[in-house]
């Protein structure tokens, strides 16, 4: 027997289709109205021509593009190295902070002091101390400013990431620990096979979020002399008396952040789907 929808069912389907078309049309109209209003408000402003010339000058953009990209390459290399090191440091500190037993009190205290201090001190000051203070000691084999500036970034971000990791570790229910120990796993095995896998998965979105933030902060090593993308833009701005290079740098930074942001969203979504799979 062939399925023949009832009249009522057909009516329902038509109604739904009509509603769908209607909401698409409404969304399109409302977007168009908002868009037109925005364009009119911006381009119709009395200073628009001046702003367009000093912030969106194609000629200056073309001339400043290459040095800015060269600067961005420094940002990218710094980001990769610093992000990996900061993640490792953060994980280590988080594990140290969550050690149990009175013997480990000094370790816990030091780890706590570290996270308190370096989350409080502004990054710029840490970079100044590392890049200008440390070489002043005139020690043999003082590393160059890239390493020193990178060290400042790793230490500051390590403190933030340590707290994120700790939140993850503490979010694992104590019953899991008890179950693991009752199976005969040592503390180390429990951490390695039961706690950390769950903890890291849970805090993956905030970890990636901090990495996106780090991407913008690595440029601060330009304080110590190296030319990063923003510094290159600043130099070009002074050279051409035009702010377009800053916009060029901003666009490049957004393009650089897009993949990371997309990965963050995807990981968050996947984690949510998995965690709610049973319910």
């Amino acid at each position, binding site marked *: 027997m062939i399925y023949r929808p009832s009249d009522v069912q057909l009516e329902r389907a038509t109604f739904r289709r009509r509603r769908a078309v209607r909401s698409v049309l409404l969304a399109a109209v409302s977007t168009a109205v908002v868009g037109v209003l925005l364009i009119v408000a911006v381009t119709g402003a009395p200073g628009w021509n001046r702003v367009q010339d000093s912030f969106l000058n194609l000629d200056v953009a073309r001339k400043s593009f290459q040095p800015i990209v060269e600067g961005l390459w420094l940002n990218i290399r710094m980001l990769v190295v610093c992000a990996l090191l900061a993640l490792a440091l953060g994980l280590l500190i988080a594990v140290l902070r969550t050690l149990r037993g009175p013997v480990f009190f000094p370790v816990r205290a030091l780890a706590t002091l570290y996270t308190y201090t370096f989350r409080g001190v502004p990054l710029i000051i840490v970079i100044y101390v590392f890049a200008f203070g440390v070489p002043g000691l005139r020690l043999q084999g003082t590393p160059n400013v890239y390493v020193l500036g990178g060290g400042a970034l790793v230490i500051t971000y390590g403190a933030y990431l340590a707290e994120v990791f700790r939140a993850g570790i503490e979010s694992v229910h104590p019953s899991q620990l008890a179950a693991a120990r009752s199976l005969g796993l040592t503390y180390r095995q429990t951490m390695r096979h039961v706690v950390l896998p769950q903890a890291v998965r849970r805090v993956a979105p905030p970890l990636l979020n901090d990495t996106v933030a780090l991407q913008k902060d690595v440029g601060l090593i330009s304080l110590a*002399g190296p*030319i990063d993308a923003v510094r290159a833009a*600043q*130099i070009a701005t002074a050279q051409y008396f035009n702010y377009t290079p800053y916009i060029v740098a901003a666009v490049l930074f957004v393009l650089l952040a897009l993949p990371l942001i997309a990965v963050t969203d995807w990981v968050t979504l996947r984690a949510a789907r998995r965690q709610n799979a049973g319910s």
Partner: protein
Amino acid sequence: MVSRHTFAALGCAAALLALTACAPAGRGTPDASGSPSASGNVCPLGGLSTRTAGKLTVGTDNPAYEPWFSDNKPANGKGFESAVAYQVAKRLGYEGENVVWTSVPFNNAIAPGPKAYDIDLNQFSITPERKQAVDFSSPYYLVRQTVITIKGSKIAGATTIAALQGAKLGAQVGTTSYQAITDVIKPTGKPSVFNNNDDAKKALQNRTIDGLVVDLPTAFYMTGAELTGGVIVGQLPQVGVPEQFGIVLDKDSPLTGCVSKAVDQLRQDGTLAVLEKTWLAGTGGAPELQ
């Protein structure tokens, strides 16, 4: 909207009225006093309308710093600005005894109001803001970019630009100094760029950079007063739009034209170049890098 525009227009009109109302009162007198001398020789030798007839009063700050002056005695004719002052005075017809020096603090020299000098030389760069308060002669010095370093650095003995190319050089962001590195020295590595000269100085002391590029007056000040063991490597050829030093005169002074003419003559006949070589590159210790 309409009312706001109307207010703005009214405001503009009021400001214009105020300006036009004030302007003649401020400008009328000097023109009138300037005209008698204009009838005959515009700049009679030794007969300009100076503060004391027959004498030219020259101002500068006390202490007067090397290498612009020497031993804090402007009247000894030594040092770049002292030498320039005497040359200008000579062109105006005032020689030896007829040049009188007076001590004028830097900030007072460019403050509006009555002046204690006829002309003042104190490393004043010519700026539009200062021009509102005082007159400037034609520039007698175009500021050069200079490389400085610390004793014992690998470029401390460099005499050529080529010898600087392998060095790690720094400068303040957005300055002619940075332009001098990229356009004149063209080093093999990337230059270091700093937010300000204080950071750059620290980096030089820490030896994270080998040399620092600043303008010549700053170079003298840094190596003389701020950096222990600081030395000037040398001056670079002119680059970009240089800062200009001008002789300061009272606003609308009848002497401005004559002093400018004298400075222009000194520039054209090469006297200024010779004085620069003698007192800045020679005695001052800032040799020229080739």
